[in-house]
C-alpha cells in the first residue's frame, strides 16, 4: 500500500452540483455536522457541473479555510452521472458517499447509511420516510415505483433520493453514463452487489416547490423505459423482440390473407381498402422488429465471453500449510492508489 492511501480518509463524499442546489456553504456546514456524528475522517468532493462562478468562489473560500474540500470543475454541463464519475476519480476512501446538492435527508441520518455499508451491504440507498407531500404526489410516486418494480423485479421505494453510500468497488465496476445515476441500485443489483434500502428522515427543507411540469412526466416515463430495456433487452433481445416481431408479422399476414380471400372468393375489390395498407405495414413492422432482435442477439452471441452475466466474488482453493481461508481473496483496496484525476489542477 502506498503512503498516499495511508492517510486516505475513511469516507469520501461526492456532491455533484447542478442546476438545482442549495447555498453551498450552508450545505457544507450541515453535512459536516452529520458526518462528524459518524466519527470518521472524511473528504468532500464537489463537482461543479458547468460554469458556476459563484459556487466556485464559495467552495474556494471553504478550501482556503482548511476544510477538506476538493473541487472538480467541469467545463460544461455533462449531467449528474458524468459528474459523479468525474468526482469519483479524485476520491480516495474505500467507502463512497454520494449526497445531493440540496438537503433531501436530515444530515444526522448519514450515519445510518454508512453503518449499513460497514455491515454486509455493498450499496445502501435511502428512503425518505416519513415523507411530506400531497396525496397526489404520493400516488404518483407509488405508480412510478410500482412500474419500475414491474420492469426490474426489484421493489425500490425512493429512487429519487441521491443520498447513497457504497463500497468503492460499486462505482469502479459500474461506469455510469446518461441518466443512469438514478438507477444505480438497479444496475448494482444486476452486477451482483447487495443493495439495501434504509429509512431516513426527510429534511425539513426538502419540500417540493410547485407541481411537476409535463416535462418531468415525460422524463419519468422515459426512465421506466430505460430501466425496462436495461434489464430485458440487454440479456435476451431475441426472446423479447422476436416475440413482438413474430406476433406483429403474424397479424399482418392474417389480415392480408383475409383480404386476399375476400378478393378471390367473394370478389371484393382490393382497391380503396385501407386494411390492405394496415396489413402490409404490420408485416413490415414485424419484420423490422424481429431483425432488430436478431442484431441484438448477434451482438450478445459474438461477445458472450466478454459479457458475463455472473460475477465471481472469489475462488477458494487449497493454500498450503498455514491454511488461511482468504488466501486468494481479492481485496478491493488492492487497487486503491488511483491515477491522478485529469480534472484536478
Amino acid at each position: 500500500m502506498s503512503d498516499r492511501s495511508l492517510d486516505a480518509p475513511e469516507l469520501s463524499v461526492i456532491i455533484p452540483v447542478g442546476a438545482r442546489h442549495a447555498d453551498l456553504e450552508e450545505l457544507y456546514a450541515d453535512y459536516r455536522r452529520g458526518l462528524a456524528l459518524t466519527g470518521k475522517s472524511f473528504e468532500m468532493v464537489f463537482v461543479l457541473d458547468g460554469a458556476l462562478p459563484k459556487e466556485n468562489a464559495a467552495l474556494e473560500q471553504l478550501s482556503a479555510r482548511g476544510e477538506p474540500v476538493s473541487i472538480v470543475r467541469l467545463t460544461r454541463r455533462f449531467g449528474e452521472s458524468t459528474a459523479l464519475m468525474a468526482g469519483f476519480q479524485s476520491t480516495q476512501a474505500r467507502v463512497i458517499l454520494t449526497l445531493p446538492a440540496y438537503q433531501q435527508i436530515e444530515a444526522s441520518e448519514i450515519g445510518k447509511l454508512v453503518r449499513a455499508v460497514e455491515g454486509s451491504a455493498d450499496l445502501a440507498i435511502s428512503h425518505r420516510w416519513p415523507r411530506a407531500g400531497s396525496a397526489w404526489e404520493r400516488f404518483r410516486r407509488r405508480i412510478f415505483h410500482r412500474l419500475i418494480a414491474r420492469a426490474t423485479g426489484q421493489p425500490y421505494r425512493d429512487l429519487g433520493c441521491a443520498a447513497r453510500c457504497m463500497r468503492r468497488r460499486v462505482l469502479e465496476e459500474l461506469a455510469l453514463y446518461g441518466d443512469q445515476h438514478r438507477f444505480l441500485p438497479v444496475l448494482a443489483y444486476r452486477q451482483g452487489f447487495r443493495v439495501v434500502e434504509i429509512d431516513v428522515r426527510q429534511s425539513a427543507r426538502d419540500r417540493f416547490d410547485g407541481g411537476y411540469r409535463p416535462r418531468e412526466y415525460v422524463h419519468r416515463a422515459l426512465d421506466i423505459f430505460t430501466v425496462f430495456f436495461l434489464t430485458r433487452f440487454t440479456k435476451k433481445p431475441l426472446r423479447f423482440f422476436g416475440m413482438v416481431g413474430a406476433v406483429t408479422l403474424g397479424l399482418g399476414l392474417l389480415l392480408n390473407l383475409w383480404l386476399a380471400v375476400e378478393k378471390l372468393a367473394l370478389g371484393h375489390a382490393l382497391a380503396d381498402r385501407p386494411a390492405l395498407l394496415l396489413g402490409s405495414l404490420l408485416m413490415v413492422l414485424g419484420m423490422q422488429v424481429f431483425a432488430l432482435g436478431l442484431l441484438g442477439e448477434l451482438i450478445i452471441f459474438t461477445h458472450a465471453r466478454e459479457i458475463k452475466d455472473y460475477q465471481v466474488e472469489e475462488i477458494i482453493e487449497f493454500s498450503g500449510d498455514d491454511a488461511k481461508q482468504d488466501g486468494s481473496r481479492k481485496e478491493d483496496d488492492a487497487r486503491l492508489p488511483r491515477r491522478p484525476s485529469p480534472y484536478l489542477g
Partner: protein
Amino acid sequence: MAQRPKLSVCVPFYNEEQSIEPLHAAVVEALEPLGVPFEMVFVDDGSRDNTLAIAAQLAQRDPRVRVVKFRRNYGQTAAMAAGIEAARGDVIVTMDGDLQNDPRDIGAFLELIDQGYDIVVGWRHDRQDKLVSRKIPSRIANRLIAKVTGVPIRDNGCSLKAYRATLIKRIPLYSEMHRFIPAVAWIAGPRIAEIKVRHHARKFGTSKYGLSRVYKVLLDLMVIKTVASFASRPMLWFTMLSLPMLVLSAAALTYTASAILVKQHLSLPIAGSGLVFFTSALLLVCAGAVAELIYRLGDLREVEFSALTQNVQVRRASAALRKMS
C-alpha cells in the same frame, strides 16, 4: 502446485449443504482407482445455507478441490459457465450437485473421450423422478430439441456430461443454455456419443425446477437455432428475409408503372404497399450489413469453431504444420 489435472469435475451447488460432502467422497472414491489426475471445481451459486462453508473446508482439506464463489444466485447456466472457465483439465465433466448423478459413471465418459469423441452425454434411461411433472415434459422437450437441432440426444436434461476442454471453453454459454450445450456446440460440429448412466432419487434438499422451464427451453432453442444458422452469413440471411418483400414490391411497382404507362386508373393501395415493402426490404438489407459488421468485430467466427473439431492430415515431412493444427 501439483501437476496439471487431466480431468475437471464441475459441480454447481445451490443450497445443497447435505449433499456436498457425500458427493466429494463419491467422486474421490470413483476417480482415484482410475489413476487419472483430477480436480473438482465446486461453484457456489449464492447459496443461503452452509454450502459455501462446507465447500471451503473441503478445499482446505483436499488440494484437488477449488470453490468458485458467486456474489449471489445467478442460475445454473452461469454456474456451469463459471465452473468450465475455472477448470484446468483437458476433459471437463459436469454433474449436478444433488447426488442424482453417479460419479462411478465418469470412467466410461473418459474412455469415450479418449476414443475421440468431443462430447459425451449421459442418458438417464432409468430416471428416478416424478412422471407427470418431470419425465413427460422432458421427453417432449427432448424430442423437439432433437428435431430442431438434428442432434439426436435422448436426454438433454442430464447434467452428467463430458467435454473436451478446448471445445467447451470456446462455446458461448448464456441465458439458460446449460440444458442443451450439445445443441449449442453443434455449431462446431462435434462428435457426440451418448451412454446410459445411473440415476438416483433425490436424497436431500428440494428440486429447483418446475414445468415452466420447458417453455423457456423451447424459446431458447429457437433463438440458438436462428443465431447459429445465421451468425456466419448474416448478409445472406437478411437478404433471404427481404426476398419475399422484394418480390411483392416488384410486382406491385411494375403493375403501377404499367398503369401509369397506359394511363389507366392508379390503384393507391397497390402502389402504396409496393413502396412500403420496398422500403422494408431495403432496411432489412441494411440490417444485414450491420450484422456483418458485428460478426466481423465479434470473437466467435466459424473458422475458429471448425478448428475445434477438425482433423488435419498432413504429409509426413511437414511435422511443424501438424503441430499448428
